[in-house]
């Protein structure tokens, strides 16, 4: 197992190197004059010179790259061109909001997707299966922003059940401690604020979770059907085990493998989806920050958010792979 983990970690090195080259090029090889592209047409000669100096734009490319990497390894991701604040610090402030939203979406997708997939498999080719198929088709075909806006229209604007946008009613005046709203409201000891935070999470969570829900449902259905035709399942039934026991002990045990992998793979999609969901619901996380950064052409913010999102994605994939190898010895020894 240790050997597998080491091998898997070594495999990540070329990818990290490639990623750093791509992101380096994103700023240092901007078409035209990078300093002018970054600062815009109205930049003063002095500010242009300062930026060229700090990026090392007058030096050969490989030196510029080493400068970028050494800054990166020291945790220096540059500063926002708009407000001058360090990118890493800003990122850490907003990241909890994105994690909170992503986890709720994942919980929704897994909590509903696995039972729906099992239901469809148990009643394969009957109306329950058809209904679940339609739900998952809609899930992958409705873009997050269409679903988000529609939910907003019906449940917030129309029925008034949930807040339209934001993370919490600003009048409640909750102190930011961890920046996880659910945690902060509890720390403040205000159950009313906690409920408000939960209400704010419902619609964005559903909107963001809809695509993973569809995928997890499909995979669970396929995985269960795959295992359900195995000989040992028939044997288990033949020796008189209850349907419930066969389901839990013989089918699901083996169906978990592909389902776990697919759940892990959803993280990349969720992070990408968060960019759009946060824009729909004015959710103050990393995704909305990136979109704002595009409008203001804040290149260091875009560069660093892509880097951090990619790192999160790679880390989760690594964990999924290791977990998979742990669950399935055939992978470990191949």
């Amino acid at each position, binding site marked *: 197992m240790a050997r597998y983990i080491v091998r898997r970690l070594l495999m990540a090195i070329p990818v990290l190197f490639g990623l750093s080259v791509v992101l380096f090029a994103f700023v240092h090889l*901007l*078409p035209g004059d990078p300093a002018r592209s970054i600062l815009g047409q109205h930049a003063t000669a002095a500010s242009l010179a300062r930026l060229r100096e700090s990026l090392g734009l007058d030096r050969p490319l490989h030196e510029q790259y080493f400068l970028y990497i050494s800054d990166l390894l020291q945790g220096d991701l540059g500063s926002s061109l708009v407000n001058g604040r360090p990118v890493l610090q800003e990122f850490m402030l907003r990241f909890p909001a994105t994690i909170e939203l992503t986890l709720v979406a994942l919980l929704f997708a897994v909590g509903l997707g696995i039972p729906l997939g099992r239901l469809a498999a148990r009643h394969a080719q009957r109306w329950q299966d058809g209904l679940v198929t339609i739900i998952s088709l809609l899930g992958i075909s409705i873009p997050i*922003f269409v679903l988000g806006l529609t939910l907003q229209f019906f449940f917030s604007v129309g029925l008034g059940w949930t807040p339209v946008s934001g993370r919490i009613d600003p009048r409640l005046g909750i102190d930011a401690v961890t920046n996880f709203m659910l945690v902060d409201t509890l720390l403040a000891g205000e159950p009313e604020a906690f409920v408000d935070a939960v209400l704010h999470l419902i619609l964005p969570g559903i909107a963001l979770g809809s695509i993973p829900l569809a995928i997890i449902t499909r995979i669970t259905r396929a995985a269960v*059907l795959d295992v359900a035709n195995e000989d040992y399942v028939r044997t288990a039934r033949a020796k008189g085990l209850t349907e419930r026991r066969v389901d839990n002990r013989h089918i699901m045990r083996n169906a978990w493998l592909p389902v776990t992998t697919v759940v892990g793979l959803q993280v990349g999609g969720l992070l990408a989806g968060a960019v759009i969901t946060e824009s729909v619901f004015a959710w103050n996380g990393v995704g909305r920050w990136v979109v704002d950064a595009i409008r203001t052409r804040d290149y260091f913010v875009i560069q660093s958010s892509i880097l951090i999102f990619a790192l999160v994605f790679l880390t989760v994939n690594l964990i999924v792979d290791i977990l998979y190898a742990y669950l399935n010895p055939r992978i470990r020894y191949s």
Partner: protein
Amino acid sequence: MGATVAAPAIAAQDRASRGLWHDAARRLLRNGPALLGLGLVTLFVAAAVLAPVIAPYDPIAGALADRLKPPSPEHWMGTDLQGRDEFTRILYGAQVSLQVGVVSVFLALVMGGTLGAIAGAAGGKLDATLMRVTDVLLSIPGILLAIGIVAWLGRGLPQIMLAVAVTNAPIFARILRGSLLSLRTADYVVAARSIGATGPRVLLRHMLPNALTPLIVAATLALATAIIDVAGLGFLGLGPPDPRTAEWGTMLTDSTKFLRQAPHLLFFPGIMIVLTAIGFNLLGDGLRESLDPRLKR
């Protein structure tokens, strides 16, 4: 002598390949959901192609007196903030989506196909290197990569096409490489090689035709995501640089300010995007089943 041997061989090959596509088409036409998908896709393409003929109004010039009107006999889908006919803009929007969707998926097929073919045919170090390149691209979550590319190259339709293409290309490369690798030891490939066929000939004549089906399916499904991604970029404000262009995602962004007064500005573009995506998804799934009947349960 050579001719008499070659002739039946070619004839047999022709019949066999006609058989595959003929059978696939027959299965597709008996598959209800796939037919529905085909119908939706046909409607979408017809709307795009016929927009200049069937659109009742001008997509860009509107009458301010008619702004934000609800659906009526004159304006089936109502009017927008500038008093432009929403139905007309939906039709022209289909044009943008179709154009960008098809071009970007085609570009992705060329880029990903070339990468995948080289990797799958060459194997070894070159294969490993190319696969690490796709790993790098795949490590950046989809729309974020597209956002990065548009931010880098600047706004514009060609940039959007390229951005969506680059997000899809590594997926196509992986698929093609995977099927090529599994074909390398197939009997007929080994046979072709043993009678002295050169590398490129084996690849182009014998392996590629048999590796294409998963790619065709993936490309059809990618059209759905491409159209969603293009609308997503438009929704985030990275759509066509001319704000007057009728683009579904941009139209949705404009609707958000008037959710209460003019919900039709949300529903019609939203429904169009969803129906188009459903169409391509159903068609893609149907193609998968009809091209490889073993997959059908």
